[in-house]
């Protein structure tokens, strides 16, 4: 009984230490990359042309009442169907200019430039 009680200060210390250092670690890990947003609405990508850096993440959000895809013409990336109200994210790992379309609505065109 006495031994069990004696452990509490160490447990509390460990918990407090985690609380103090965890946010600092999270900040360090999250900051170097950026996230960009492309809205899909009225059967178009907005912005149509987006430039990001290698390592950045792009999130496409579908605001239309039906599905769309985000599909690179050269097949470097493909979201497959993004349902209404859902999103899809892609982290750009390779530099280049990537034209993309929606395979369900061929008149939708966008460009992702990765520097």
């Amino acid at each position, binding site marked *: 009984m006495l031994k069990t009680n004696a452990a509490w200060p160490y447990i509390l210390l460990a918990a407090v230490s985690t609380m103090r250092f965890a946010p600092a670690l999270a900040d360090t890990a999250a900051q170097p990359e950026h996230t960009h947003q492309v809205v899909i609405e009225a059967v178009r990508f907005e912005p149509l042309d987006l430039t990001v850096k290698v390592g950045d993440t792009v999130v496409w959000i579908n605001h239309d*009442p039906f599905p769309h895809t985000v599909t690179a013409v050269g097949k470097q990336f493909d979201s497959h169907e993004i349902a209404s109200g859902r999103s899809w994210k892609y982290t750009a790992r390779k530099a280049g200019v990537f034209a993309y379309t929606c395979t369900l609505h061929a008149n939708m065109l966008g460009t992702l430039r990765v520097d």
Partner: protein
Amino acid sequence: MKLIGFVMAMGLGVAAAVPAAGPTDPQIAAIVVTANQVDIDAGKLTIATTHTQDVREFAQRMITDHTGVNKSAVDLVTKLKVTPQDNPTSQSLKAGGEENLKNLKTLKGAAFDKAYIDHEVAYHEQVLDALDKVLIPNASNAELKALLVQVRPAFVAHLEHAKKIQTALAAKS
């Protein structure tokens, strides 16, 4: 006059007993829901009938997109407490859709595909014309008008898609 023009534009030839003023929001709601449902029904018949992959995929796209548009329209009018009101235009649309289905059911193979796609081209041209000349200008509620503006490009995409298949079918025959 606007509504008469709309009915004529839908290619239905029903100009009798329509009011001289443009449609009200409850009437527009009924027209939108009926127009979508007519195309969904034609798409379902096509999925069950055609053996042509491009035509099947197009029909599936019509079912999915028009079902999505209808859900948005119903959600909005429910929120706005607008009850869709049947009117000569929605009734004519329904009758025209039933007539199209009746005709398609008599056809098979390439003749079916051609009739379905030809009708889809004409239908989407007519709906776009109606959206631009009657439905969008007459919608008084801002959210209803915004929904019509938002879904208009889908009809443009469908029309282009249908025309592309129409050209491909003509080249095959």
